[in-house]
């Protein structure tokens, strides 16, 4: 069986940049839900852009259902909440829902029901740029999980989303019958997704995998610990991820940036 997503040695470097944004990223996904946690600027969104065919791949491979992403066509099962993919035409949100339902070979009703469940029917007559930041995020989130996806890529799905909608969308994600990758800089999300796999992203490299259920037991230690689960080579030097002991408990931080500052 083909893996839904298979990334090997991925390197992404933009034209005007000296350093690659991603370098040597490996990730494979089969019937799995994954959270990638990393500080701002670590390359998380660029990883999604590479999977979606929106970033220049200068090394390694990204395969979706066994096909190189550069050759992928008609893979309607891959969806995302990234705002730039919903700018195809300048229309109201409701028209975009109908357009993408058609482009995904799906029905509008499921998405419409979910917008209603999240009390977002009122945004359907507005253009996306007229929505609040939180509404824009929820628009992308609902578009990503509607239309029977097989692989869902969610970039910071809870930024500016109120607590009530966060809780309800987490329930949607838990019951989602699809592989999923969430990228976030927040740790508190992990406590609600305990059966998801966990990776850290630092300086354009991916480290793991761990389990989100291990969150309470994970520690970060400066240097190379003997019993480390993983030793991460970062711009701050070597950092070991250890279980049950170490310098700083991961659970004490709200996000990875704060944790790295403490280390």
């Amino acid at each position: 069986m083909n893996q839904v997503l298979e990334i090997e040695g991925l390197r992404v470097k933009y034209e005007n940049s000296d350093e690659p944004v991603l370098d040597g990223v490996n990730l494979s996904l089969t019937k799995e839900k994954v959270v990638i946690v990393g500080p701002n600027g670590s390359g998380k969104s660029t990883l999604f852009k590479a999977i979606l065919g929106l970033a220049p791949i200068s090394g390694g491979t990204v395969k979706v259902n066994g096909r190189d992403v550069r050759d992928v066509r008609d893979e309607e099962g891959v969806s995302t909440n990234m705002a730039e993919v919903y700018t195809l035409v300048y229309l109201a949100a409701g028209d975009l829902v109908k357009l993408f339902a058609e482009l995904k070979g799906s029905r509008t009703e499921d998405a419409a029901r979910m917008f209603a469940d999240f009390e977002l029917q009122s945004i359907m007559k507005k253009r996306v740029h007229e929505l609040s930041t939180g509404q824009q995020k929820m628009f992308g989130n609902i578009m990503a999980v509607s239309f029977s996806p097989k692989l869902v890529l969610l970039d910071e799905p809870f930024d500016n989303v109120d607590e009530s909608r966060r809780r309800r969308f987490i329930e949607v994600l838990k019951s989602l019958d699809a592989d999923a990758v969430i990228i976030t800089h927040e740790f508190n999300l992990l406590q609600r997704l305990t059966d998801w796999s966990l990776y850290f992203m630092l300086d354009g490299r991916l480290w793991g995998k761990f389990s989100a259920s291990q969150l309470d037991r994970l520690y970060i230690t400066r240097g190379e610990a003997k019993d480390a689960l993983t030793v991460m080579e970062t711009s701050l030097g070597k950092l070991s991820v250890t279980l049950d002991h170490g310098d700083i408990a991961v659970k004490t931080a709200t996000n990875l940036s704060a944790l790295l500052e403490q280390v």
Partner: protein
Amino acid sequence: MLLKYFAKALLSNKRLWVLGIVQMGGWLCFIAAVGTGGTVIPANLLVPYAGVWYGYIALASLSTLAVTIAGSILYSNASLAYGFRYTKLSPASYLSNMVVSAAVMGVALSATLLVASYAVFSERFGTSLPPVDPAGAVLIAVLGGTFMLAFGMALALVVVNYAGMQSQGFLNFGPSMLAIVLGLSQALVALPTALIYASPFNAIESLLFEAYGNIAPHANLTDITSTSLQWEYLLVTLVAWTVALIALDSMLLRRLKPRSIEEARPM
């Protein structure tokens, strides 16, 4: 039925209506008020005279379609790249739907200005000056809209794929500048016939002029003693440019290399 979404996006674009109709309607009124410069136009040439300025204004209006489409493609380039991989959208279906949408919008712009030209010049000269061949004008508007789509898309895709977003400034004025310079030149002075026959902009203007006034276009549209032009050659020029640009668009869409719109920031 993707067409309804693409057509709706163009037909409901307020900026396009303001640039293509309100602004051009204003110019039409200005030209009607001061255009003759005191020269008395014989009664039998009043309809062709209205046709000269209808041809020019409709050409300028159609060029705003190219500007709008180019800007839209720049903004949506990432969505297109995603759509070609992860939805049923293909470069061919996108292009064909955009061609039909642009043709519809071209007719809407051109037909509105046809009516406006009739009203403005009839009022100016105190006699009814209806277009002789409105159906022909609609047909040329279909071709003109399609050409402007193909031209605007080609410019945008060259910027996205090769030149980089910092070069996008040209797209904001390039098509309209070409339309105004070439169109106004032929309306006022005798351009070289080789240039007119090679230029799709002059082909649109000349053919619209002929549809309104029912006389053969000339190297100088306001001077019937200047070299007369063959409408068949002008039509071939317009169709050939359009077909060539659509083929180029198709190739560039298949090789789309998406860029962040943020690259386009001037500062």
